[in-house]
């Protein structure tokens, strides 16, 4: 094995880790807003992602059958649509369920689990029990090879770029916009925020909906990597929660850091052992670290 081959393997391994990092971060971002900022345990998070994925599938089927011209460009619109569909549904669910349960966090967990079961069955009944995957535009297929023996998949790069954009957007929105100011005020001290004229109820609803919308984007991005089925959302849920908890619930930067750490740990240990054992090792490490340091990597400085 020559040096350049070693380098190639190292590069590809590093890229696999980065790609997993992007996936985990995208999953965790919506939850970091809903769970980290609002404290709502949204067990239906995975299903909101599935909705985003199905939106892509819908757009791809429609454009393939009726507007063949758009096959190359539907993806961008579909991602935007995925955000808004998940947003609208999140808005509705907050109005119907969550707003009654802010005082009882453990009950939100059960209620949203019920929501996720209902949504799964809806997918199964109205869309079909089989896994589907959309027809991707040509520019998302294939791989990019800067030189001999080094292949970097384009869909992985796409997910990374999207993650970068979404994370940047969320960070800017949270720290520079009016909405972000209101959210942070509400998180820090609800009563006080209320008394200085922030409509905390409206803030809550908007925040929840935006979190769901980001989950929709995440689901849309994942269609480039794998297929979508009615229960694929439930595969992500524990990972997503661990990413957020591990990073320190109220800290968005913590979420980024923990997604990075978990992804690297997972992809490096996958190099040495089977996938399932790598998963066990990663999860076990996270749980043990959380036992030692329950507040997560980056604890918020807010007193509760």
């Amino acid at each position, binding site marked *: 094995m020559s040096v350049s081959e070693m380098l190639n393997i190292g590069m590809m391994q590093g890229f696999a880790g980065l790609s997993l990092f992007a996936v985990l971060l995208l999953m965790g971002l919506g939850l970091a807003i809903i769970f980290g900022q609002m404290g709502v345990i949204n067990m239906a998070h995975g299903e909101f992602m599935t909705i985003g994925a199905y939106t892509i599938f819908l757009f791809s089927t429609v454009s393939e059958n009726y507007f063949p011209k758009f096959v190359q460009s539907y993806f961008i619109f579909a991602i935007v649509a995925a955000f808004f569909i998940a947003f609208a549904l999140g808005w509705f669910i907050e109005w119907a369920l969550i707003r009654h349960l802010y005082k*009882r966090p453990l009950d939100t*967990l059960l209620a949203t689990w019920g*929501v996720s*079961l209902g949504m799964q069955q809806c997918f199964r009944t109205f869309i079909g029990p089989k896994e589907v995957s959309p027809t991707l535009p040509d520019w998302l297929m294939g791989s990019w090879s800067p030189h001999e023996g080094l292949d970097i998949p384009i869909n992985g790069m796409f997910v990374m770029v999207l993650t970068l954009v979404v994370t940047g957007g969320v960070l800017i929105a949270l720290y520079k916009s009016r909405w972000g100011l209101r959210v942070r005020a509400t998180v820090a001290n609800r009563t006080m925020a209320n008394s200085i004229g922030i409509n905390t109820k409206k803030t809550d609803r908007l925040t929840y909906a935006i979190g769901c919308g980001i989950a929709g984007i995440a689901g849309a991005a994942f269609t480039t990597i794998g297929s979508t089925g009615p229960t694929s959302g439930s595969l992500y849920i524990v990972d997503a*929660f*661990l990413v957020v908890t591990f990073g320190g619930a109220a800290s968005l930067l913590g979420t980024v850091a923990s997604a990075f750490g978990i992804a690297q740990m997972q992809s490096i240990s996958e190099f040495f052992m089977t996938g*399932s054992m790598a998963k066990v090792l990663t999860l076990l490490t996270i749980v043990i670290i959380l*036992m030692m340091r329950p507040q997560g990597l980056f604890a918020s400085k807010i007193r509760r």
Partner: protein
Amino acid sequence: MQKIKTWIDQRGLNGFIILAILLAVVFPLAMDIFRLNLVGKYLTYGFVAIGLVMCWGYGGVLSLGQGVFFGLGGYAMAMFMKLEASDPITTKIQSTPGIPDFMDWNQITALPMFWKPFQHLPLALLAVIVVPTLLAFIISFAMFKRRVGGVYFAIITQAVALIVTVLIIGQQGYTGGVNGITDLKTMLGWDTRTNSAKYILYFVTVGLLLGSIYLCHWIQKSKLGTLLLAMRDKEDRVRFSGYDVAMFKVFAFCLAAMLAGIGGAMFTLQVGFMSASFVGIVPSIEMVIFAAVGGRMSLVGAVYGTLLVNFGKTYFSESFPDLWLFLMAGLFIGVVMAFPDGLAGVYTSHVKPWFIKRMASVGKTGSKPGGTAKAAASDAAAEMTVLETPPGTTPRNVMPINTGLGGIQGQSA
């Protein structure tokens, strides 16, 4: 007779005795062995449900990993029975006789170390109780000592459920993988698949379940139960009063884990196999809904909730498989939004007052002239506000409902 009645009333054992009669007399008489075996299987989930009443309802600690403890108890039993089923004579066609068949399929040539203790029944039975309790202790001690509670604890237990499932499925050679441990036939030479064995196992399950309920009931009535409740509602006050809050929580969680382990072992005995599908996230959270439907504060209610949800599951997934998940979803949402105390809550807030009112009015119209005291007692029952103690009973907890029941007894005496 009156004395026994009073004793039962004082200890709040009415519901317990009705449940005991239902399980030990009515069900065996009314059902054939197939159905009864099914009920026996459901009752093993009842162990988990009453454990959850103790740690979630009373202790305020929601665990989403009860399936792990159920599975550990079940696997401990299954490992013993599997070793007995795979003696060297029956497994002589294997390349290594005397080890379980799935090990042979996975090119394992010697019994792994951690399987060795399960060759002996006493050790296996000990493991049924000790292994889940120990794991629960390790998880909860580390967490509660650092004052992690509520939501975070729930998420960690869920992660533990995922870890254990992935581990069991991944280590096919040592655990049987997805298929689990199957073909369990005998326990110390006693065939567990015959009808008579199924009857015996059913009654053993019922006996153990009733015993566990009584134990938990006793804990609830003791000072420990009061402390658990106090801790759930105002943790800091209990801590400032000088109690070690963490250890009480650890105790509640370990108790729940131990009960779940016993349930798992009984499950294995009755059903004849154990697999990873009872360990994961979904079964664990379903077990929470059993307790929630029955009422998270009521031990007896939790058993009814378990039976009801499982009957519903069996019936609907046979006849309308599409409908079941919707119903389950509705159950989760409905229990949280409308009936936070489940069936038991509906019973105490709606059925019982209605029943008492009804009994009281029947008593009024149909009673012989029997003296002012009795009439007063029935009035008290009807109005449900008078807190006087009617003659013949000495209720300990001064509650309107007890006064009402006393009134009825005063009538019949």
